[in-house]
């Protein structure tokens, strides 16, 4: 009688931890992968130390930001193919206007550039929302626009920034084992993403990515929220452009182009669903580190560089394949448990 009246079809779940693991399996998986790759790296390179860690962080920083940017947009139900180009714009702006200035001015300029990134992202979002043109078309077209803008600002690689500014990513403040770049990444993510994730806006962001109609009926303002997700993407893209500035010390109008596609592989690897509404940004960021470590390992092991590309491609596919198998096995396990219970 009691059983008959029960409404919810409850999938038997273990205690809270088990469910947490089940829900975040992919993200935990990518952390695990990172640890595994790291262990492998240290095993082939016994002298792995602060220098190598700094190399890793400096190398991964732009991709990490690009992945964070793409993750924000994709979680909100869109996609932004102009993130690389926006990174280039931020990069050349920084290089052009920071040249011959002191550290304070450089920081001020970077703040302005971050605002600019937000505006640029918002423009992408506004166009997509207003014209109702599919996001992929709008942002593909905008990648040409931002690419052109970058060339207008700086026709060829050049410019510069004060050394102190560059040390923001490459030096170390507390311990040689903790490069500034890592701190920077952690600070930016925890200042921007964490409050967002906890607040109602973050909820709206995920809701719109999951199902626009339902979100609208729940009282979410769909248009502004979508624009917001692009604005956030623009912000992180600007961070990425500045990170490029910090690692290279120059501006290049073509700097960011490779990060659009690699950013997308990072988010997929990092557990963001391209259909929207699912995933976070820590997964993609860790994935960015994995994607930076793998080529490094290929160099360290002295692998034939031509095969290196092949290995990377195969690895990418295998990881995602393994990730796809996990839920399948889980579903089987649940089914078995249902029968037992």
């Amino acid at each position: 009688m009691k059983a008959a009246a029960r409404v919810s079809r409850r999938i038997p779940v273990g205690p809270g931890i088990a469910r947490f693991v089940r829900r975040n399996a992919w993200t935990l998986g990518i952390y695990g992968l990172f640890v595994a790759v790291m262990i492998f790296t240290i095993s082939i390179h016994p002298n792995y130390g602060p220098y190598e860690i700094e190399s890793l962080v400096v190398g991964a920083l732009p991709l990490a930001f690009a992945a964070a940017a793409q993750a924000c947009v994709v979680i909100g139900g869109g996609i932004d193919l102009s993130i690389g180009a926006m990174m280039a714009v931020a990069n050349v702006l920084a290089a052009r206007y920071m040249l011959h200035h002191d550290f304070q001015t450089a920081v001020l300029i970077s703040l302005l550039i971050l605002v600019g990134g937000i505006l640029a992202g918002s423009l992408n979002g506004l166009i997509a929302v207003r014209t109702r043109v599919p996001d992929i078309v709008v942002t593909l077209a905008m990648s040409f626009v931002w690419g052109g803008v970058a060339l207008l600002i700086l026709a060829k690689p050049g410019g510069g920034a004060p050394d102190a500014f560059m040390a923001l990513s490459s030096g170390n403040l507390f311990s040689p084992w903790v490069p500034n770049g890592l701190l920077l990444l952690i600070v930016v993510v925890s200042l921007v993403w964490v409050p967002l994730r906890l607040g109602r806006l973050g909820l709206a962001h995920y809701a719109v990515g999951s199902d626009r109609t339902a979100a609208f009926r729940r009282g979410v303002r769909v248009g502004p929220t979508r624009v917001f997700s692009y604005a956030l993407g623009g912000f992180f893209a600007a961070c990425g452009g500045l990170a490029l500035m910090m690692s290279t010390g120059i501006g290049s109008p073509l700097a960011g182009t490779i990060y659009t596609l690699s950013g997308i592989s990072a988010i997929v690897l990092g557990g963001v669903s391209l259909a929207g509404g699912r995933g976070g940004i820590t997964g993609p960021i860790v994935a960015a580190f994995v994607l930076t470590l793998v080529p490094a390992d290929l160099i360290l092991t002295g692998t034939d560089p031509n095969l290196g590309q092949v290995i990377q491609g195969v690895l990418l596919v295998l990881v995602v394949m393994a990730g796809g198998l996990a839920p399948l096995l889980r579903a089987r396990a649940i089914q078995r448990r249902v029968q037992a219970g």
Partner: protein
Amino acid sequence: MSDANVLLETRGLSKNYGAVVALRSGALSVRAGEIHALMGANGAGKSTLVKVLTGDVTPNAGVILLDGHEVRFASPASARKAGLASVYQDVSLVPLLTVAQNLRLTGTAMPAIRPWLEELGLEDVDLTEYVRDLPAPTLHLLDLAQALAALPRLLILDEVTATMPADLSERVFRVARRWRSEGRSVVLISHRMTEVKALCDRATVLRDGTTVGVVDMASSGQEEIVSLMLGPAAASVVVSEGAVADTAPAPRVEQTAALEVRGLRSGVLQDISFTLRRGEVLGIVALEGQGQADLFECLSGNRRPDAGEILVQGKTRRFRHPHDAIGAGLVLVPADRALALLRQRSVLENIALPMVNRLSRWGLINSGAERRRVRTAINRLDIDTRAGSRVMRLSGGNQQKVTIARWLATGFLTLLCFDPTRGIDIRTKEQIYRVLRELAASGSAVLFFTSEMPEIQLAADRALVMFAGRVVAELSAHDATEAALLRAAHGLSRAAAAEAS
């Protein structure tokens, strides 16, 4: 309409989607303290009227008066603030958020919703579960609880009971009555005439997007409402519900078994066995979650059972994919049309989906033959194909019909229908009963689960009642009264079941 008691009034509301006029002239007047039914055939524009009223879509023309003042809502949220809350036909909770997060999104406070969750029997629901992991009836109830938490003056329920078995529907009605007793109003949309008659005070009837009349439930008969809904010409064709079994061709149940199930186990399903003969319509009755879904999944080849055998025409079959089941002549009409339809494709493509390869010669589809078969199926179920270039633009009921029409066009040996009349208007229901009878008469077999117990006597030759994954009773159509079925479905008549077998 100089009724002082009027809470909400609309005049001349209209809405078109491109060339499709979904709502032509919607007039609705709801008094404070009444339960008002909104009736009409599938595609009449009921849901559209609700959406327009609550700011879910913007109307092309018309006015909405609340307490005599003109209002216009930009979104369901602003309608909710003004005291209008709606539970829509298609569930509108965000699938990838947890229930609790959905509540937060609307700004519903836990203390406000707690009593309603209890009232609706949802206290067991885990609020930290993802919405997409919960079944549709639970979601509709959650949606309702949330609407109630806002204490709206007007509560709109668009076919929320369509997905629910009787016990759950009753909870919804209890709330509706309570709302009325507190001087607030409810607008109810349902295709179940008995529900409407039992519950509602008045009804507004829509036909082809236009309000064609308002009737007093106490003083008007079913025929009057049906003739308003269907128009004078069509109404004469329709006979009253009870007549179907009499006028339809007599069943010629043969002794050859079309389908035999032996000791099947899967999910909730515990060791189930029965035989379905050719020419027979076998009904299955159960409350929510008693294993009926698992049964249909296994029979349709969508899931591999853990134990047991399925025999088709005496031969044991193992289905690894629905393709195998279909090859053996077992076809499924699932409960959830979202599972069955290609939303962006045309009605024709949806109906022809299983048979495209069969209709091809040298790789090219024989479009003449295809059109003929599809057209026949469409006509047989009278599907409104005005918005047929994309199935998602059809009204809910017409979408449901497409899922059945598919198999009529394709052909089969045994039809597995899971709640085939869910959300279907009264005339079509009769058409479907009749079609089921006709199919049986022509030698097919039909197994159908229904959440509406009275349907058993209208369409089935025999009924099995399931409880906790087992068959607990087998009743002939004659004995399968609603009361008897309900008793058995609650697991109260094991003794009776023992007697029967």
